[in-house]
């Protein structure tokens, strides 16, 4: 078996026992990336030299018997949305193409402190807006199970690199499903922790009240290992929770005795792919066979979740992205061309005696803002900025933004009531499997509606996990989503682990990468 196929947990044992070195492991993954990533496009930047130097340093420290962090020598891929002062952080946007952060995100700092080897920066939808990674300004990422299809998004690179065995662990972010949905579509484990469980400091904001950092891996045990490294209170993030972090990976194996599993009446409606519905029902049967009782529950406001989300997220985004104005960092338009165009236009208007036109003509500064932003942002980002600006503008605030904040509370209250009756809620991750590249580009609303199962956890701040639970006839992965009450990550992981132990979906490899390694 090639090194790239082992789980992080297994690799950790091999590293600790000295059977392998971090250099060997890092090199094996770099080779895997070299073989597949030109085609799959999961990574935006790889700094092989830095990664190998880091691995060498950790190997030396291990040989010298020095104390090492919990991820010592394990390669981790990081979504290009978390600031790292050792390289570029672009958010897959032209706006930040040349941005070099002068500081580390708390999550990045914790990974470094845990002696992880940061192997590369993964592709994403620009500013994490989208569900297909097609909105990256730089490259397409392909689904390893069918390279003609999307890997999901926005953490598409993060899911692809784990599925294609290019990294055992990767960090994603989830604002409306951006970890769980690509994890589901790529057949890996992805988890969004409770809002506030992981620091957002250094996470380039999309929608601050919804964004959360989380792990992607091939097993729940690996996800637990990565989560316990990055979770915990951070004084730099006022919304981070001051609650101790349990050692998730240690008590993972205890099954949940007397588990009450909820399934949501409203989830099984028209629009859900029958093969997905079938897979979810079978997963529920697995739980039943493990002793769980199944209870049908109702989340009466779930039908409003997507509408609520697509008011709140763009509103916050329009504000968070106002800072990209080409003044202090980021892309700025060509100023001499701008001035020439403005002058020409002014002369034109003067010649025509158009007083009103002259009055309305942007000054140099306003035009600089507008052109810099128009050139720096892609269409989906612009669409959301426009939507959010409109929803917050005078006269519309109450009808859109304020209304959405109120419905958000009703959605949360639905969950509070539901968790009075059940311990976990099971559901699909997506209503359909990975679609073909380019299929939805011109229909933003249809694309938004795909988020119906995932956005509620963000609105309510709940932890939620996606894990492999089957395949379609075309070997496209299907994900099972579990949701738990706030801060019940351990319950969620234990529940997921129970299922994982009883099934082998998580062991399947995409044909693309399997061919090469069979027989090794």
């Amino acid at each position, binding site marked *: 078996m090639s090194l790239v196929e082992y789980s992080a947990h297994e690799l950790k044992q091999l590293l600790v026992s000295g059977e392998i070195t971090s250099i060997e492991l890092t090199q094996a993954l770099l080779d895997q990336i070299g073989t597949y990533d030109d085609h799959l496009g999961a990574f935006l930047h790889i700094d092989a030299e830095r990664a190998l130097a880091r691995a060498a340093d950790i190997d030396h420290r291990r040989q010298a018997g020095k104390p090492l962090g919990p991820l010592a020598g394990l390669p981790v891929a990081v979504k290009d949305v978390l600031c790292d002062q050792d390289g570029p952080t672009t958010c897959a946007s032209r706006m930040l193409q040349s941005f070099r952060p002068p500081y580390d995100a708390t999550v990045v700092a914790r990974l470094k402190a845990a002696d992880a080897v940061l192997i590369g920066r993964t592709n994403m939808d620009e500013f994490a807006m989208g569900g297909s990674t097609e909105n990256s300004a730089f490259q397409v990422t392909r689904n390893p199970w069918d390279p003609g299809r999307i890997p999901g998004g926005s953490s598409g690179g993060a899911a692809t690199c784990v599925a294609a065995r290019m990294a055992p662990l990767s960090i994603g972010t989830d604002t409306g499903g951006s970890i769980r949905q690509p994890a589901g579509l790529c057949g890996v484990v992805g988890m969004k922790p409770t809002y506030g469980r992981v620091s957002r400091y250094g996470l380039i*904001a999309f929608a601050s009240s919804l964004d959360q950092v989380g792990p992607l891996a091939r097993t729940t045990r690996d996800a637990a290992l990565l989560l316990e490294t990055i979770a915990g209170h951070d*004084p730099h993030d006022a919304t981070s929770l001051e609650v101790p972090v349990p050692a998730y990976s240690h008590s993972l194996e205890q099954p949940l005795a007397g588990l009450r599993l909820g399934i949501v009446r409203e989830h099984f409606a028209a629009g859900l792919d029958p093969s997905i519905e079938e897979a979810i029902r079978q997963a529920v049967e697995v739980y039943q066979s493990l002793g769980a009782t199944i209870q049908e529950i109702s989340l009466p406001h779930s039908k409003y979740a997507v509408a609520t989300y697509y008011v709140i997220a763009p509103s916050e985004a329009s*504000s968070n992205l106002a800072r990209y104005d080409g003044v202090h960092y980021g892309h700025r338009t060509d100023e001499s061309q701008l001035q020439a165009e403005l002058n020409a236009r002014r002369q034109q208007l003067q010649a025509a005696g158009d007083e009103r036109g002259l009055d309305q003509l942007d000054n140099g500064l306003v035009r600089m803002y507008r052109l810099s932003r128009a050139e720096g942002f892609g269409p989906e980002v612009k669409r959301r900025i426009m939507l959010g600006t409109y929803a917050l503008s005078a006269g519309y605030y109450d009808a859109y933004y304020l209304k959405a904040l109120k419905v958000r509370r009703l959605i949360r209250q639905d969950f509070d009531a539901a968790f009075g009756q059940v311990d976990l809620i099971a559901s699909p991750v997506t209503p359909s499997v990975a679609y073909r590249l380019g299929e939805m580009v011109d229909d933003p609303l249809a694309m938004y509606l795909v988020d119906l199962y995932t956005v509620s956890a963000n609105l309510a701040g709940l932890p939620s996990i996606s894990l492999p639970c089957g395949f379609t006839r075309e070997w496209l992965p299907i994900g099972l989503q579990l949701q738990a009450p706030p801060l019940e990550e351990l319950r969620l992981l234990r529940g997921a682990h129970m299922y994982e132990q009883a099934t082998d979906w998580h062991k399947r490899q995409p044909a693309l990468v399997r061919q090469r390694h069979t027989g090794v």
Partner: protein
Amino acid sequence: MPETSTHPYTTVIGLEVHVQLATRSKLFCGCSTQFGAEPNTQTCPVCIGMPGTLPVLNRSAFALALKTAIALNCHIPEFTKWDRKQYYYPDLPKGYQISQYDLPMSVDGFLEISDPLEPYAPLRIGIIRAHLEEDAGKSIHDEVAGRADSEIDLNRTGTPLLEIVSEPDLRSPAASRIFLQELKLLLTYLGVSDCNMQEGSLRVDANVNLHLEANGQRVATPIVEIKNMNSFRAVQRALEYEASRQYRVWQETGQQLGQASKQTRGWDEAAGLTRPQRSKEESSDYRYLPDPDLVPITTSPAQVEQIRQSLGELPSALRARLVREGNLSDYDANVLINQGQELVDYYQAVAAKCNDPKTAANWVTQEVLRELKEREMTIAQIPIPAECLADLIHAIQQGQLPGTRAREVFTLMLNDQITAAEAIGKLGIEQVDESDLVALCQELIDANPKIVADVQGGKQQAIGALIGQAKKKNPNVDPGRVRSICLELAMKS
């Protein structure tokens, strides 16, 4: 309302004051708030608004704001939150200012001032609200090689400001100035701000219009906001100018409130007039939204009460007491109060010990303040305890120390950190016996017949030379006594 001014109108004024709070670090990051640093040397990823950064509220900033609001008799709601006020400007790096919109930390207060038209009658000026917000940076115009640029300095970005908005209760430019003076006194006394207008730690905008009678009906002129006033005197002048300008415009156009949109005008100090400032119509759509990065603050009535108790006597009451008990002038009392509570405490200790408040006030407001300034010290650092200064004053009162040498003694006390008695001893100052003094004067008269002749001839000022000689022979002599004794002896001889 009573028309007590000589104008055919009443000037109605509301003030909006921004005060920089005296914290060490900025409102949402650890950068220093020190004034005068080189451009862009006091910034960090947070106050530059770099991608991914988050604000965390400075505890002291909120505490200072709360203290001020309570001293301004404001109601403190139990719940307050943070909002983003969104607009684009190069000195606002996030594209929004963190401020407070619909649930400010304090509302409905007042400040009492004395009526300039009827001295000693207190006027209660309402405070609509006082809220905390972050400051923006600075744009400096920079002409380089024919190309017009602005240079942006973000040192000031994120400095904590308290915005205090008064009701339109002020009825004259003079009253507005008094309001500002009283507010400054309160803020400096509480130590919440240094209120230095030159350094921008206190900034004032004014809203003004006129109420007048036309055809038996009360009418109001359109409201104008005035900016760019850099001193309290400038505020008064700008308001006086603006009131007469509005009256002139009203006479010409008859335009009333509601018939024209609110105008913003800038005060031009050199030209002594206000000029209209351009503002785009869309700029007023600030698209406020609750800041998701910051959490709300709760303050219980018990906490408010505790702070109220700790405030003690506030400047207006304190001034009244100092004037009443110590027979000080309003001016001297204000000078003391302006320096803050510690100096007032020091003064009170000196006054109590020497039992002469007036003299104590003179010493503290003159010698002590001058030395503090020269030595860049605070009152807490002064090596002369209040009792020692009182002893010095006492020695003068007892005639043990000639008034002319008191400053010398004071300086030595400061330099050598010794008591008044020690300093007097060290300088060899001792009481000169009256008979010794007469003998000394007689000696001088005998030795200077020319001077005696001059004095007898009516040139009394000639005696001055003898005073100098007397001081050389014995530095402890009282020059006044020498003068009168010598004059007497000269006339007799």
